[in-house]
């Protein structure tokens, strides 16, 4: 029993043993904690407008100051974390699910389908991310849905390609041929012999993509193409502060710092995860 418990904790201990991993975990826990406990930690309603308090610098009443509408930036940052994390989680999960399915089809299916899907992936990838986002926003209008669709479109071709490449390699491997020679059908080969071997590396890569997703959400909100006001979002805070950057720089600082801390945290964590669990992946962009 105790052996099982210590086995379960071993990966965590290995992560914590790496200074970068420990820092990453600390930052990620900080951000998640802030987002989960946002209602409890913040004294003010994130969207409550208070014209009397506009453009106040950081103080004990307003830890990070207030914006042009007198909203408390600390509360907005905490609640913005909820948006960022939920978008990141949801869209990454969606991209993973779609990417794995498409990748397995491309890798294991007939050759012509593989070529067709590769062309499609390459075409989608040939739109620069922001251009794709801008084009999609004209289609959907500014909204969180648009953000999620952009993230899925940006991530899926990459994930599908990785799964496809590995599936192609595994398809020719002797243990898959051995399973086929025993009479295993396509479903069994994919489920038992291919999936377990391709999913681990992809999960690690996806965890390293979370900062990218957060950047897309914040970037689109910064451009006014993501969440609609008055919903708090880190990008929206940056947008609010940017026009007043000369006189009230704290708004921009309040919007940018959580983005930096979150992306660094997830990246450090993802890097360490990869180094500890899958050293072969090192160097993948």
């Amino acid at each position, binding site marked *: 029993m105790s052996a099982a418990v210590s086995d379960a904790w071993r990966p965590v201990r290995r992560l914590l043993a790496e200074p*970068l991993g420990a820092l990453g975990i600390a930052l990620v826990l900080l951000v998640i904690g802030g987002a989960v406990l946002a209602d409890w930690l913040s004294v003010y309603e994130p969207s409550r407008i208070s014209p009397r308090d506009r453009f106040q610098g950081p103080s004990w009443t307003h830890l990070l100051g207030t914006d042009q509408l007198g909203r408390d930036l600390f509360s907005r940052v905490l609640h913005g974390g909820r948006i960022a994390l939920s978008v990141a989680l949801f869209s990454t999960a969606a991209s993973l699910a779609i990417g794995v399915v498409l990748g397995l089809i491309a890798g294991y299916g007939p050759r012509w389908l593989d070529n067709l899907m590769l*062309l*499609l992936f*390459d*075409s*989608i*990838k*040939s*739109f*620069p*991310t*922001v*251009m*794709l986002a*801008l*084009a*999609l*926003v*004209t*289609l959907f209008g500014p909204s969180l849905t648009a953000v999620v669709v952009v993230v899925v479109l940006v991530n899926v071709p990459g994930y599908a390609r990785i799964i496809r490449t590995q599936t192609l390699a595994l398809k020719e491997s002797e243990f898959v041929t051995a399973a086929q020679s025993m009479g295993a059908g396509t479903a069994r080969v994919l489920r038992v012999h291919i999936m377990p071997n391709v999913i681990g590396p992809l999960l690690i890569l996806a965890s390293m993509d979370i*900062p990218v997703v*957060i*950047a897309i959400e*914040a*970037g689109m909100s*910064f*451009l006014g*193409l993501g969440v609609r006001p008055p919903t708090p979002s880190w990008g929206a805070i*940056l947008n609010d502060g*940017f026009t007043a*950057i*000369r006189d009230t*720089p704290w708004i*921009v*600082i309040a919007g*940018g710092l959580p*983005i*930096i801390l979150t*992306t*660094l945290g*997830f*990246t*450090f964590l993802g*890097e360490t995860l990869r180094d500890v669990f899958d050293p072969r992946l*090192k*160097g993948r*962009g």
Partner: protein
Amino acid sequence: MLGYTLKRLGLAVVIVSLAMAILFVMIYLIPGDPAAVALGPRATEAMRESLRVKMGLDQPVWVQFWNFFTRAWTGDLGNEVLSDRPVAQVVMEQLPHTLALIAGGMVWSVALGIPLGCWAAVKRGSWADRVVGIVSVAVIAVPSFVVAIYALLIFAVTLRWLPAIGAGDAGDLGDRLTHLILPSLAVGLGWVGYIARMVRASMLEVLEAQHIRTARAFGLPETMITYRYALTIAILPTVTLLGVGIGQMLSSAVFAEIVFARPGVGKLVYDAILTRNYPLVTGAVLVTTVLFVLINLLADLLIGALDPRVRSRF
């Protein structure tokens, strides 16, 4: 080599065509009547109808697609709504600014990234390697628009070392370059990290290879092994990565142009979206996409020129 070039070229044409098709579908799916949107609420039904005919919206879908497709290939991207000038002309006017910005970003990333990565690989395991590793990861992680805003805040607003806004005077090269420093840093900084990591990783992989062991067993000098035997191979994936990187830099350029109020394609598209100038949006997106595909094509051809194994495969 000729076969390889033709194959890559053909692939690029197919990808651009598919991208056009995807873009057309997106335009077609836009809710609402483009003519109504373009003319605004005060237009009469007759005005809208005549614009619809002019834009070809009365035709069946496939005719619309065929027209869009053939015109796009001949460089006719239609006219923009506000001034009725050809979209292609408007985009081309702004393109040099964006290209300058990306070139600046490339210079930063290549000039810093390759030596850093090489150095870290040779000093593998040292504290210098660790520092390069952490810094690369950190600059990759932070989104470019945050870098842009903070760079603006620190170097332009607070320290006042460098200009904050615009692209500088048209005739004054020095002024243009000083205006380019901060935006191009914002565009290229993350790629310093990417390239440093990529070069380091592929250097380490190559240095482990059997033929490097053979070269050592012949007593070749370490500098020759590092630069002529290892780096020539390790650089190959970086060339491919740069092709992709320029696409990402195009994205970053949009933010840099908006933050630093520079002219350029990114700013153009952004303004076009805010004014619902759809032909301009699709035209500019298409131009940047073609640009991206062309750059990747160049990267592929460069790989073919550098790697004899790739050349002979076709």
